[in-house]
C-alpha cells in the first residue's frame, strides 16, 4: 500500500491507513481533540489524494481495528459478500466515488455493490466527496422498511414526534403528541426519551402511547428510548413496545461504555421479535452520532467519521426500521460549529444509506455550540433534498427535557410543502381522514392540538 505522495514538488509521508483516513477528513474539533487531525490544510488534501488512489482491497487488507480484537469489526467482516467484493476489490476509492455519481448507476446497482463494501470503504469514499456529492449520491438510494407501517419511499418525508417532558408526566407527553399530530408529524415513530430509566416508568409511557395510537387508529409505531436493558424489563413486565431502541458505538469498547454488546443486542432482538407488539419485520430503532467513541475513550486512534460508519455496519445486523444520527447533540468538542455539523449530517446520512439503512437525522445543536436555528433550517433543506427518510420534530424545536434544539413540527411541514414531499402513505391517508391534510397540504384545522381531546 502506497502511503507517500508528492504534490507539486512537496512530499507528504503518512505512516498508516489510520493516519491517512484521519487526515483526509474535513476539519472537525473531535479529530483535533483526539490529536489525529491534519496539521494544515494542504496536508489534509494530500491525505485525500493518497486515499483516492488506494484500492478497496488496500482498505480491507489493512484493518484499522482487527477483527480479532473487536466484535464490531467481526460483525462488519462477516457481512461482506465475497463474490461481490472480489468483483470490486481493485477499484480505487476515486473510482468508487465516480461510480456512485455516474448517471447509469441507480438504486439497484448500489444495492448490489453495497454487499461487497465494508464500513471502512464507505467511510473512505465519503472523505473524498463534497457536500453536493453526498447529497446527490444519497438521493439515488431508497431504503424502505416496515414496522406497523412502511416508510422510506421516494418523495416521502416522515417525522418522529419527540414529545419529551422534563419529568415524564404522561399528560404532558400526550399534549406534545397532539401538537405533533396536528402538524402531520409522527409517521416515523412516536418516540419518547424518558428522564426516569426504570422499568415501571418506561412501561407506563409505552402503554400510554400504545393506547393513544389504538384509540385514534394512528398508522405509526411507539418507542421509549431508555437503555435497552430497561426496555427489556418493561416488555417482560407487560409493556407494549413496537420498537426496541438503543444507541450504538462503532467499537466494542464504545458499546461497553453504553452498557451493551453484540450478545446483549442479539438477546434483545430475540425478545422484541417474540414479545414486541409490531407487525415488523423491522423492529429496531438505533441512534448514533460522531464522537461518542472518543467521548468514552474507546476510539483506538480512529477518526470519528470512520467510527460512525462502523456503527452503521453494526446496525445492519439487526435490520432496523429506523436509524437516526443525532448529529449536533454531542457538543462543540466533537463538532465545533454549524459548518462542521452540516458536513457531519450529510456524511452520516450518505454513509447510512450506502450501508442500506433507513437513515433519519436529528438536525440539532446544543447551546454551547457555535450554531443556531438558521443553520438547522439550512441542513434540513439539504437533507430533504438528499432524500432523508425522516427528521426529528420537537415542539418549536425546543426539547424541554434534553436541553437542546432540533427542528420544529412547522419545519417538517414546511419542507414537505417546499420540496413537494408527502408523509408516509398510510399516515397521509390517516391525516386526510382526520381532516388535517388535503392533497398533500395542511388544512385550516391543522395546528390545533385540541383535535385530539
Amino acid at each position: 500500500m502506497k502511503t507517500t505522495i508528492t504534490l507539486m514538488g512537496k512530499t507528504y509521508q503518512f505512516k498508516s491507513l489510520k493516519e491517512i483516513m484521519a487526515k483526509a477528513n474535513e476539519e472537525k474539533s473531535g479529530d483535533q481533540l483526539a490529536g489525529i487531525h491534519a496539521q494544515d490544510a494542504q496536508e489534509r488534501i494530500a491525505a485525500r489524494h493518497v486515499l483516492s488512489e488506494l484500492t478497496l482491497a488496500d482498505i480491507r487488507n489493512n484493518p484499522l481495528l482487527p477483527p480479532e480484537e473487536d466484535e464490531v469489526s467481526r460483525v462488519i467482516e462477516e457481512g461482506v459478500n465475497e463474490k461481490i467484493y472480489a468483483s470490486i476489490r481493485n477499484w480505487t476509492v476515486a473510482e468508487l466515488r465516480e461510480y456512485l455519481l455516474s448517471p447509469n448507476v441507480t438504486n439497484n446497482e448500489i444495492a448490489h455493490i453495497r454487499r461487497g463494501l465494508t464500513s471502512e470503504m464507505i467511510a473512505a469514499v465519503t472523505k473524498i466527496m463534497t457536500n453536493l456529492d453526498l447529497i446527490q449520491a444519497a438521493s439515488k438510494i431508497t431504503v424502505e422498511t416496515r414496522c406497523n407501517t412502511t416508510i422510506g419511499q421516494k418523495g416521502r418525508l416522515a417525522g418522529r414526534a419527540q414529545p419529551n417532558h422534563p419529568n415524564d408526566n404522561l399528560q404532558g407527553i400526550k399534549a406534545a403528541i397532539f401538537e405533533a399530530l396536528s402538524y402531520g408529524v409522527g409517521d416515523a415513530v412516536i418516540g419518547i426519551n424518558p428522564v426516569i430509566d426504570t422499568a415501571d416508568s418506561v412501561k407506563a409511557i409505552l402503554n400510554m402511547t400504545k393506547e393513544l395510537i389504538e384509540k385514534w387508529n394512528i398508522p405509526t409505531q411507539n418507542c421509549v428510548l431508555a437503555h435497552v436493558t430497561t426496555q427489556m424489563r418493561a416488555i417482560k413486565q407487560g409493556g407494549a413496545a413496537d420498537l426496541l431502541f438503543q444507541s450504538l458505538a462503532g467499537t466494542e469498547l464504545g458499546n461497553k461504555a453504553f452498557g451493551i454488546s453484540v450478545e446483549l443486542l442479539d438477546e434483545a432482538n430475540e425478545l422484541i421479535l417474540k414479545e414486541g407488539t409490531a407487525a415488523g419485520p423491522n423492529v429496531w430503532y438505533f441512534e448514533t452520532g460522531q464522537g461518542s467513541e472518543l467521548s468514552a475513550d474507546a476510539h483506538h486512534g480512529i477518526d470519528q467519521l470512520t467510527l460512525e460508519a462502523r456503527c452503521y455496519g453494526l446496525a445492519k445486523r439487526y435490520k432496523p426500521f429506523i436509524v437516526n444520527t443525532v448529529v449536533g447533540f454531542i457538543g462543540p468538542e466533537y463538532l465545533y460549529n454549524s459548518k462542521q455539523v452540516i458536513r457531519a449530517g450529510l456524511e452520516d446520512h450518505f454513509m447510512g444509506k450506502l450501508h442500506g439503512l433507513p437513515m433519519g437525522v436529528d438536525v440539532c445543536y446544543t447551546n454551547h455550540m457555535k450554531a443556531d436555528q438558521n443553520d438547522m433550517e439550512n441542513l434540513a433543506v439539504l437533507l430533504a433534498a438528499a432524500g432523508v427518510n425522516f427528521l426529528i420534530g420537537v415542539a418549536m424545536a425546543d426539547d424541554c427535557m434534553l436541553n437542546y434544539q432540533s427542528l420544529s413540527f412547522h419545519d417538517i411541514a414546511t419542507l414537505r410543502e417546499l420540496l413537494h414531499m408527502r408523509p408516509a402513505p398510510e399516515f397521509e391517508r390517516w391525516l386526510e381522514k382526520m381532516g388535517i391534510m388535503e392533497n398533500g397540504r395542511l388544512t385550516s384545522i391543522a395546528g390545533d392540538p385540541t383535535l385530539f381531546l
Partner: protein
Amino acid sequence: MNQADIQQIVEKVMMELQTRISQQSEDKIDKDEKSFHYTAVDWLTHVPNPKFPEGIDELRKVTPARIGVWRTGTRPLTKTILKLQLDHAAAVDAVSGEVLDSLLKEFNLFTVETCYENKEVYLKRPDKGRVLTEEAVKTIQERCVKKPQVQIVVSDGLSASAIEANLRDIYPALLDSLEVNGLTQGTPFFVKGGRVACMDHIGEILQPEVLVLLIGERPGLVSANSMSAYMCYRPRKGTVESERTVISNIHSGGTHPVEAGAYIGTVLRKMIDQKASGVRLEL
C-alpha cells in the same frame, strides 16, 4: 360639619383623585408610546378556532413544551420565533457564567480546579475537565476525610446558574436523606471547570464507597438552570459511563431539587447494599 361641608370635601377629594388618575394614565400613555413591555403573557399566541377552546390552556398547563403556538402557512408566528431566539440568546450567555463565592461559603464548600484553563478550552477539551490540577489534589488530600462512606462534590459544569438556582434546595434535602438512610459523608467541596468523569479522579484520591456529583447541565431554553446528580459506586480510573447512575433535569420545572435531594440518599443506600451502580443497579 354639615352636609354641605361634607359635600365640598367629597367633591374636592374626587377632583384630586381624578386629576391623579388622569395623570397616571397620561404617564402610562407616555410610557407606552416610547417603549414596549413584554411579560410572559405577551408572547402567548392563540389557535384561532380550536375544536375545544378551553382545551388549549389545559394542554399548555401540563407541559413546558411550546405547544398551541399556531402558524402562518406552515411557519410559526413572529412572536413565537422571537421568543425562541430570546431564550437561545439567554442560554448562550449563561454558558459563560461563574458560581458566586458567597454561595459556596454558605455550605462550607472550598474550591479546587480542574486543568480546564479557561472557558474556551473547557468547551473544546473535556479531557482537561476530568483531571484535577496538582494543587487541587494536594488541597483535597489536606482537607478531606479519606475513605468516606459518601463523598459529595459540587461542580459548575456547563451551567454555573444551575448551581446558583438549585444548591440551596437540593443540598439540605440531600443531607437529610443521607441521615434518614443511615449514611455518613466526608468533606464536601466545589470543583471549578468540572466534567462528569472528574468523579473518577476524585475517587482515586479519596476512595469513597459512593460519590455523588451535583453538576450543571448544558443549558436548554426552558431550563438554563438544569442540574444533574451523577452517582457511582467506588468511582475509579476506568469507570465506564454505564456504571454511573444519574438523576438529570433537576430544576424547579423538572424534577424539583428538594425531591431530587431526598431521593439521592435512597439511591446511594441501594448502591452500597447491592455493591453496584449504573445499569447493574436495580432501583
